[in-house]
């Protein structure tokens, strides 16, 4: 779902970055391959980067606007409704 959104709104400026929480490069790469993820992912081996983002659970998603401000977050799996209500308005300017 997030992969589709990344592709659909790439021209609008949406960039998706995955953070693999407390994982190593080998298993993270295996996960990325098996899930067919096309956006870049990084490994957060000790989890400190995720804590700096203020994570409160796994999985968790953050929406960051063009000013670098976290404007929405979601704990748990991403849904189409959440993408529509919280991601789309940030990416696609009202016409």
């Amino acid at each position, binding site marked *: 779902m997030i992969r589709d959104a990344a592709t659909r709104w790439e021209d609008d400026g949406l960039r998706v970055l995955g953070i693999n929480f407390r994982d190593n490069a080998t298993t993270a790469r295996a996960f990325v391959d098996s899930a067919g993820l096309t956006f870049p992912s990084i490994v957060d081996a000790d989890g400190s980067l995720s804590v700096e983002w203020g994570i409160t659970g796994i999985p968790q998603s953050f929406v960051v606007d063009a000013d670098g*401000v976290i404007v*929405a977050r979601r704990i*748990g799996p991403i849904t189409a409704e959440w993408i529509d209500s919280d991601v789309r308005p940030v990416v696609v300017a009202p016409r």
Partner: protein
Amino acid sequence: MSRGRALTAVGVCILVALVGVIIALAAPSAPSAEQRARDVAESLRCPTCVAESVADSQAPVAIAMRALIDDRVHRGDSPDQILSWFRRQYGEGILLDPGASGIGILFWVIPVAIVIVAALGAAGRRRWRLATFLGAAAAALILIPLLTPGESPAVVAEEDQVDGIDLLTSAAEAHPGDLDLRRGLADALASAGRSDEAADEYAAAYRLDPGDRRIALDYAGALITSGRADEALPVLESAHARYPDDAAVLLLLGTLLDDRGSPRGDDLLRRYLELEPESALRDAVETRLVAPGPPASSGTESG
């Protein structure tokens, strides 16, 4: 300076130095880096656990937080600096014992304010049955902070409350993704009786963390007290799906559905009674259960 005065000055200096040495020797030695890290971890709430500190939890997030604390301690950060950092990243709720001052005061004032808002809702809208139930649900929430030892609810003067709302509004606008600021602003608005605005702010907090039971309840409560009960239904339905045996959710959702003549409302209220057999609202709930259904239009009000 005469020789006598010079000797006196030297003597005073020696005396001061001796006192300093004695104090230094008598003072307890500074805690080790490990102890400082442990103290900080014990002050923080594990965000994925129930009532467990970061120090005691084996949750992955807590382990990562401990690693970060160790790193910061070894880099020379003081415990206060580290705790401040966590407050900034996670909000006041990350502290196991939020202070009864500053924004932390909201954690003590808010539950009391919810009850007051519920009471105002009862008086203002004449929907007394619903408001009574809402107040009862809020009263359940109140028990958590009141039962926490060492602190007591504080009272905020009205002018401070207004200033606090202005401050929180500015802060929330500057940090729109900060969950605790949104929640704090919503709570402050609710306690000021500005339920409609509170509901909008709770909506923003709810979008940031729809899984938070407390936010869902507060959001629904603000919607109900501002006359938008229909909008509260999906919020409570979602909370019920996530927490099917939560008594407060059962009570509010059951009451709303019962108000609309839905038999499912009775089911939820019966479940509430099963879970809370000693509830002070038992008689009221049972009366509601045996009473004939309300008129189809929920806009009908009695004096």
